[in-house]
């Protein structure tokens, strides 16, 4: 039960990240490939403030939001005028820097030793996790309601116009750069806040939590669900994280010898789903038409996942068979 609540809370965090990426990439066309950087910065910021400085949860969240806002505003001012490919590289670099700082700045982060313990903010014995889950749920539903409104608003249309053709949008009479940098700063800050909320969820922080696969998971969810649709982020996270990480990994009935295979099979199915969706619904479950180049890029990613999982699965199978037959540990496990 506790594990389920934890997983569902994490699912909500992923939905939030995908919702923010939807605004950045789906609406504005800003390809933020550093999602994990903003999330990780927020998470570590709350961790350091709570553990090292003994601040209250609310204070640390407010200060964290301010910190991430300043960082993303400066980053945005530097990169948002660049071409899309350059923005993509710059944001990847940003998240790599954050991951590195978590390792090297030991005086704050404790480095690879890890930082903890960060307690739940709601101190009601036995109900802490569940209250936190509902708090996240309300937050995510609130964001979703706002997104549905945004799609019907003038601001939403202006964002799509900027994505479609920024030069033409500049002649509509609004400062397009201002729209971009405000939206980028706000959405990155919320990613940071989601990171801050992940700190008490994880309780113990280590630098290897800030891995690019989180960015990819958010991207794939959004692309699968439909990056331009207001509900795409939510649907995408349900079919990826929800279906595979929670349902299959936790509840698939497998005998203990082959349990080791589950993560591989999960990723294999995941890749197959990605390829299938992109072949038959190139703009995601909720998308309409198709744009060949983006589809190909993500399709390549899906095939790569399948390929690497096949290799992994082969190893895992031989290991599993070995274990089942000999009833002893292989060298790898030792």
């Amino acid at each position, binding site marked *: 039960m506790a594990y389920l609540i934890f997983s569902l809370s994490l699912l909500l965090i992923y939905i939030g990240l995908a919702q923010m990426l939807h605004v950045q990439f789906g609406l504005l066309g800003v390809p933020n490939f550093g999602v994990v950087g903003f999330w990780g910065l927020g998470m570590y910021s709350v961790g350091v403030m709570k553990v090292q400085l003994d601040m209250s949860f609310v204070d640390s969240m407010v200060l964290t939001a301010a910190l991430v806002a300043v960082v993303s505003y400066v980053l945005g001012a530097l990169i948002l005028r660049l071409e899309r490919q350059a923005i993509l590289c710059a944001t990847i670099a940003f998240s790599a820097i954050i991951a590195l700082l978590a390792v090297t700045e030991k005086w704050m982060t404790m480095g690879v030793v890890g930082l903890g313990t960060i307690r739940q903010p709601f101190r009601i014995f036995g109900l802490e996790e569940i209250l936190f889950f509902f708090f996240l749920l309300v937050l995510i539903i609130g964001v979703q309601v706002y997104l549905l409104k945004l799609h019907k608003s003038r601001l939403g*249309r202006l964002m799509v116009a900027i*994505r479609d053709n920024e030069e*033409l*949008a500049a*002649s*509509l*009479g609004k400062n397009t750069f201002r729209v971009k940098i405000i939206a980028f700063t706000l959405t990155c800050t919320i990613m940071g806040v989601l990171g801050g909320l992940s700190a008490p969820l994880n309780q113990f922080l280590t630098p290897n939590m800030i891995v690019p696969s989180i960015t990819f998971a958010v991207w794939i969810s959004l692309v699968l669900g439909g990056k331009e649709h207001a509900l795409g982020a939510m649907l995408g996270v349900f079919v990826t994280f929800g279906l595979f990480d929670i349902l299959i990994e936790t509840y698939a009935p497998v005998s203990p010898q082959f349990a080791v295979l589950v993560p591989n099979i999960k990723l294999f199915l995941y890749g197959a789903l990605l390829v299938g969706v992109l072949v038959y619904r190139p703009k995601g479950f909720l998308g309409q038409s198709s744009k060949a180049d983006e589809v190909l890029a993500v399709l390549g990613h899906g095939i790569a996942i399948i390929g690497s999982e096949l290799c992994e699965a082969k190893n895992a199978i031989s290991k599993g068979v070995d274990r089942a037959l000999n009833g002893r540990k292989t060298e790898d496990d030792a």
Partner: protein
Amino acid sequence: MLEVKNLHSGYGDVEVLHDISFIVENEIFAVLGANGSGKTTLLKTLSKLLPVSSGSIAWMGDDVTQTAAFDLTGRGVAYVPQEHNVFPDLSVAENLSLGALVGERSKKERLEEVFELFPRLAERTGQLAGSLSGGEGQMLAVGRALMQDPKIIFLDEPSAGLSPMFVDILFERIANTRTNRGVAIVLAEQNALKTLEIADRVLVLSLGEMHLLKDAKNLDRNELMEAYHI
């Protein structure tokens, strides 16, 4: 209204326009010239989507040489690019309503006027702009510019790629806009003969230089040919 003095501009270090000077009053001002002569570069510079390297642009008495593009739009300048002049992922209605981000009058009033001028757009309000035909797309682009209630429109080769029938309709509507709504139009075109039917004055560019600036009425065809081919 619009006064351009010794204008130089281009892309980065490459200068494309050399020493261009002219004044546009409330008229249809045609910019003619062969492919690559600098028409698009001129219109982009006038809309401030390209920086001015030297010289000046004044609009309604104010120096706007360094003004940002979006600011100019607020002052009654509309621009219709040659290509990619609609937002393909938005519907016809959404494209038009983006035109109404500036200006005072109600959106409804403006929409009615645009639909009166281009009834075909009224039939397709829900359709995505990316799926319109070339002619309909051109109408939408001009319609969106009109939604801005502009005092001047920079119109870049609206006839490119259109069937002659569409060109006739479009040019008639352009002339009509000028007469009925008092909007000045700077019209860049390759289609010289068609343009001369509606233009008041003509500027001919060749290799980024001015080769002719004259009233359209007393323009001799040989003179025009000569200016084109230098």
